[in-house]
């Protein structure tokens, strides 16, 4: 069973922040150097732990944004009442150290090993692990057709927008479908409204093509997307999902 091998103890390492890049007003990408980093698979995450002076610890999981072989990058959305994300988005600086363990996870992983189409469905910052899959597809020159259906609230909240546009322009077989749920700029050429049966009827492959499906977003988003796909005839076990505690798409 892939990814289920004995991996040994999972240990905390002090990672050093080497760069930080603003993606949107609430989202930042942090590049990390981790000692003894064994490499990762697209879709995996890391755990991050913060320790206060009084010993109080807070721990959260963050998806890896970079492709295998690239420097480890995490893209983090600031949650206003969060214990960890405001520090990662607003405070952390290049040169700072932070406790990291990983890579973690073997279920929500796409290695691009087969040529089946992959339908990636993202709500808000749920795009992060899917971006690692798309970057991996681009880096390896895989021929697997990929469609990313990406729901954001506003155009300004779309993460990786220019890179996604560029990838779609330069790589046959990679298609990006944006939908905006809250407000649309003048001349918006993408889709409007929440992800549901109507949108999937237009953009999802028919179940007969047996695409692999990866859905990541808030719990409400993931449940709505999975329900719509099952309604189209998708087999539930073919839909891999990951929920996070962030805001929606």
């Amino acid at each position, binding site marked *: 069973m892939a990814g289920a091998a004995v*991996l040994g103890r999972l240990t905390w390492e002090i990672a050093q922040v080497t760069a930080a890049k603003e993606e949107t007003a609430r989202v930042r990408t942090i590049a990390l150097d981790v000692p003894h980093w064994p490499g990762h698979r697209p879709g995996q995450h890391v755990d991050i732990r913060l320790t206060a002076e009084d010993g109080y610890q807070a721990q959260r999981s963050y998806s890896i944004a970079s492709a295998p072989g690239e420097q480890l990058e995490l893209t983090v959305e600031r949650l206003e009442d969060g214990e960890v994300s405001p520090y990662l988005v607003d405070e952390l600086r290049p040169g700072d150290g932070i406790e990291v363990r990983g890579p973690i996870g073997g279920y929500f992983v796409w290695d691009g090993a087969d040529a089946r189409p992959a339908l990636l469905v993202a709500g808000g910052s749920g795009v992060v692990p899917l971006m690692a899959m798309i970057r991996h597809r681009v880096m390896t020159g895989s021929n697997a057709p990929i469609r990313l259906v990406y729901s954001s609230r506003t155009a300004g909240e779309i993460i990786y927008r220019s890179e996604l546009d560029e990838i779609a322009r330069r790589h046959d077989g990679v298609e990006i479908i944006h939908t905006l749920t809250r407000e649309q700029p003048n001349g918006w050429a993408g889709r409007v409204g929440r992800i549901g049966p109507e949108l999937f009827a237009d953009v999802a492959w028919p179940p007969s093509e047996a695409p692999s499906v990866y859905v990541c977003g808030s719990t409400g988003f993931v449940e709505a997307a999975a329900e719509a796909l099952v309604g189209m005839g998708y087999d539930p076990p073919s839909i891999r*999902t990951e929920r996070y505690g962030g805001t929606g798409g």
Partner: protein
Amino acid sequence: MDTSDLKLDGNAIAGTMRELFGIEMTVAPCVCRSCGAREVMACVDVYVNAPGTVVRCRHCQSVLMTIVRGRDRTWLDPSGLRLVELPS
């Protein structure tokens, strides 16, 4: 925020499970003692807002497992699970 916002899935405890068992557990099939549903560990409901972590069956909502972390030990109650299938 309603209660559904507090519900995560088994991916959220992948690090903890690997720390405790030394293997990647999200792909491990497990069987609910209450309703008999079989799902991989990634596809259980996980609530991390309680004093401990509560893991529930996605199909019947029975508690499969609770995990409570102390300073130097962890208490894991797996009594809602009938079976966990691990690779040899």
